[in-house]
């Protein structure tokens, strides 16, 4: 891939990618590292990008996977104060969604043990703040599928947040976290 193309990609999407990485990883420096990894991969692997495979979708996928690999490596280091957020599980559906949107560390923790498609949908909704129509269009899946993925994530999130200990949270998650 010639430099000119990569330069255009960087100037068009670099900042949005940086924001997404920063939102997921929680710091500028880690976001910079993530950007390095994504662009090195772009320049080395030179993926075929065309109308059916837009560049932003590719960048988002690679960046998100990188960020969650980093988060997974850090999960024992970061202390997540579950006690202080447990009450949100008892709120109404609308309040739960709003409160969850304000707790990005918690969303990241919840996303560590979900499948890749759920991760991309939830990150697009909670971090990029896209609506379900836009997510469906970007990920090329149907709107009902996006809604179903989000509902399943939210229902599972309530169960995990309510669990009183990390061990129970893991158990509630089927031992996957």
């Amino acid at each position, binding site marked *: 891939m010639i*430099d000119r193309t990569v330069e255009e990609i960087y*100037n068009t999407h670099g*900042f949005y990618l940086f924001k997404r990485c920063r939102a997921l990883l929680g710091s500028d420096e*880690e976001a910079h590292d993530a950007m390095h990894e994504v*662009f*090195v991969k772009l320049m080395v692997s030179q993926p075929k990008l065309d109308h059916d495979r837009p560049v932003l979708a590719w960048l988002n996928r690679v960046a998100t996977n990188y960020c969650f690999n980093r988060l997974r490596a850090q999960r024992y*280091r970061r202390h997540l104060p579950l006690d202080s957020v447990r009450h949100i599980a008892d709120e109404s559906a609308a309040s739960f969604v709003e409160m969850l949107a304000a707790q990005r560390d918690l969303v990241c923790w919840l996303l560590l043990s979900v499948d890749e498609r759920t991760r991309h949908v939830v990150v697009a909704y909670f971090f990029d703040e896209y609506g*379900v129509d836009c997510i469906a269009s970007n990920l090329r899946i149907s709107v009902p599928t996006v809604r179903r993925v989000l509902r399943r994530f939210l229902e599972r999130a309530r169960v995990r947040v309510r669990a009183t200990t990390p061990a129970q949270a893991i158990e509630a998650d089927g031992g996957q976290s």
Partner: protein
Amino acid sequence: MMSKRYGSEQWDRALDGLHAKRGEEGQSARWLKANHPEFVDERRSFYEHTPWHRFRASVIDKVERYRMRRRMSLSVWLSGLGVAVSAGVALLLMVPSSTSPVRPSDVAVDTIRVKGSAPGVQPAIIDALEVPELMVFADGQPVESGAVIQADALLMFRLNSFQFDHVIVFGVEEDGSISPYYPERASGQSVLVGQGRGIPLQGGVRLDGRLGRERFVAVFSKTPLAWRVVQNAAQEAWKTGAFRVDSLRAVGLEDTAEATIWFDK
């Protein structure tokens, strides 16, 4: 006590409700320009701080390293294939030689030609990989850049050094404090390591238990180098913002090469 599950409609209303509060177009550029002018400023600031040419300079080294590794694996595979083929050819030549009159000169020439192809490949591989490298082992295990290690881990180092015989290894903490590891003392100078792959540095370094990010830097030089010189250059670079733990450029001393790796503790 487990409260009731919400139905699909309730969740959908909640999701749409939050999105309506955020704005119809999510974080699209148009919506952001209209609703969050500060985001536009942030974007401008991002590109002012890290324009393409600067970003490219910071990733191009990694790209080259990836490409070299890829070339190396292909070359190794091809040379392996070459060895197998030459062994097969040699066998074919040897079998008739035991049953027919020996013609030493023919056999010798053929064998030498086939075997001679391997050295032609080897220098290319070596040339392609002559990138100085700093390898770190935490409590005996090799660790890659970005790994999380114990704050009191015992670190040991190995180097790939080419064209340079001397090295200084030091660490930079998030607050900018710089500690020499090789040499151990601030009054010391670079360590003579010679050239080659996997050169071990004597002894090890026990981390002091401080949490946070630390970047380790190896500065390779052809002649002995005083730690003070490297320390001053690193401190100057830190002040100008060119040398940071997160987006490290280089200490930038003339006639030196650098390799770096960072960890979270």
